[in-house]
């Protein structure tokens, strides 16, 4: 259960047996054609896959560099890539005879995805969510409740995603015999990082064949944002053996030289968080510190262990983008292409725009548009005071 030295199962003994059961069930499931057929059928007939591959013609031309292609995970049911994994894990839970699921959520996207699959598969669902996040994301809370999920407020720690995850794990420890914990990113103890990757690689698999069909070649570079890192691993994994440069983009918040960022690989050190050895933001004594990002989905102090490994081997480069750069990129894609991206995805776009401008027109960049920005419009209303100042420069 390791990616190089990263990963592992740093969990209470109580969870070791449940994790092993999941590992075995996952292995069997992925070798079972009936399981795979059900998974892919649901992706297609319920979530609307394959998602589109959109050539961002206006932005590409206004930047004057590489052709930019967007993998449109925002077009999935519930509006982000999170559903791919939630469907996969819910099917696995069903296979294992578990009828109750647990999930943690920050901004609420994974919570909504989990509540959705729970409704679809007739399961009971508890979503752990920090009290701070509940206050900031009332509509997603109501979406989950409408879907029949119980949203459990978490008041420990800073009352955000990290604490919600802690509390979800604690609840799972108490209820692991009949509950399945659907982790929302490629984090947590083995086999979660691998399992979530296996259920998200559909992003990259689809994008690879769509790109080949459209361009007759592989992209020059691939860019995706990295919080826990599930959309990026899903995108990167099928291209790892290819001659394609890949860039993961972390949230630099107010700047990586400030205390307010979530740039885990860029600025973090090795340690253990939520059951996994990886890079994380911590003090010299090993206390995990609070991250910061305008994007709730990237506002996480750890990162998937496979990313830590890919960073150490140099296969993927990890860079970072500030709040302000992400907002500017969000506005640019919106006004030039008519697509409002999630603020998470806007981090990948900001880096994409920066490097595309320096590339040649016969080069290409594939970027993962991990989710839609409707959820962020309310926050942006507060950030972009006095209306839109960004100039339309097509």
């Amino acid at each position, binding site marked *: 259960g390791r990616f190089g030295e990263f990963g592992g199962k740093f969990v209470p003994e109580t969870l070791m047996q449940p994790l092993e059961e999941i590992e075995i069930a996952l292995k069997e499931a992925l070798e079972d054609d009936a399981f795979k057929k059900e998974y892919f059928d649901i992706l297609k007939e319920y979530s609307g896959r394959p998602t589109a591959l959109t050539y961002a013609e206006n932005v590409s031309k206004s930047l004057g560099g590489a052709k930019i292609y967007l993998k449109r995970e925002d077009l999935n049911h519930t509006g982000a890539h999170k559903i791919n994994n939630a469907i996969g894990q819910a099917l696995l839970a069903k296979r294992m005879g578990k009828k109750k699921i647990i999930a943690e959520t920050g901004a609420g996207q994974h919570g909504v995805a989990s509540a959705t699959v729970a409704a679809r598969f007739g399961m009971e669902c508890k979503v752990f969510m920090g009290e701070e996040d509940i206050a900031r994301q009332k509509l997603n809370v109501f979406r989950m409740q409408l879907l029949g999920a119980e949203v459990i407020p978490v008041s420990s720690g800073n009352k955000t995603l990290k604490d919600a995850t802690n509390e979800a794990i604690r609840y799972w*420890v108490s209820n692991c015999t009949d509950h399945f914990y659907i982790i929302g990113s490629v984090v947590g103890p083995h086999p979660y990082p691998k399992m979530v990757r296996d259920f998200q690689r559909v992003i990259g698999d689809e994008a690879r064949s769509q790109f080949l069909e459209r361009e007759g070649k592989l992209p020059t570079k691939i860019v995706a944002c990295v919080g826990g890192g599930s959309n990026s691993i899903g995108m990167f994994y099928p291209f790892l053996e290819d001659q394609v440069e890949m860039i993961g983009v972390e949230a630099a918040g107010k700047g990586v030289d400030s205390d307010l960022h979530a740039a885990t690989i860029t600025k973090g050190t090795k340690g*253990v968080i939520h059951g996994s050895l990886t890079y994380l933001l911590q003090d010299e004594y090993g206390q995990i510190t609070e991250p910061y990002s305008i994007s709730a989905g990237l506002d996480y102090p750890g990162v998937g262990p496979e990313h830590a490994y890919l960073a150490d081997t140099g296969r993927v480069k990890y860079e970072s983008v500030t709040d302000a750069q992400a907002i500017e990129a969000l506005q640019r894609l919106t006004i030039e292409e008519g697509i409002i991206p999630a603020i998470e995805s806007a981090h990948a776009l900001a880096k994409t725009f920066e490097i595309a401008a320096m590339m040649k027109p016969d080069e290409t960049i594939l970027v993962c548009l991990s989710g839609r920005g409707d959820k962020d419009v309310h926050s942006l209303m507060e950030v972009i005071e006095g209306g839109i100042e960004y100039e339309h420069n097509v």
Partner: protein
Amino acid sequence: MNTTFNERLPKVDHLFIPFIVAGDPHPDVTIELALALQEAGASVLELGIPYSDPLADGPIIQRASQRALKNNMTLEQAMNLVGKMREKGLNIPVVVFTYYNPVLQLGEDRFFTLAHKNGVDGLLVPDLPYEESEHLREECQQQGIKYISLVAPTSSKRIEKIANNAQGFLYCVSSLGVTGVRDTLNEDVLGFLTEVKQYSKIPVAVGFGISNADHVRLLQDHCDGIVIGSAIVRKIEELNEALLLPTSRQKALVEFKGYVETIIAPIKPCEV
């Protein structure tokens, strides 16, 4: 090898293993609390290192951790605190209870240096299960530090292999869940303890949720020791202000000791 822990371990029918958090409510008070527990009959002291993300702990120990972190308690300082406890007369074995990340950041070499210097006898890492602890377990064995292993109700086939490699005492988690005070204990724990004892060559202690004398009475014939954590930490929280004020501290310590003695009355230790 492995002499210190065993040499310091009182010879009693039942081990009483209390847990407190280093630095809660204040480092100086922690020393006094340790001594009071020894007076009350503690066989082993489990000293918790406060952690930002204590996954295996319930709200009581989470709050204690937060208080201790506000006092800037670290793993290194906590181990030095054990040295001060020794100076003040603490004779029983001390097991440091810490999540893995602080150990990782401190470094194993530094950990063992501090352990030897301060008379730390054991190490318990709640988020380092058997498969992940192999290296640290071996290092501990070489360094004469007992690496305390846990078995849980879900461990099933894992019990034998964990028991075979356990040192010091084998910590049985009474039930599914995190640390905390429970009103009632699930009687399933008795069968579980019986099973564990079949495999264990060392004392079998039971912990998680043991909160009062009735619990102790229920368990005493089925184990070799009892760990009491949250119930004690909750009492410290209750006495927080009194313990912090020099003028009321002694009275609070007496109340604390009396409370602990009440819980463990059924296994009141007497030398054998």
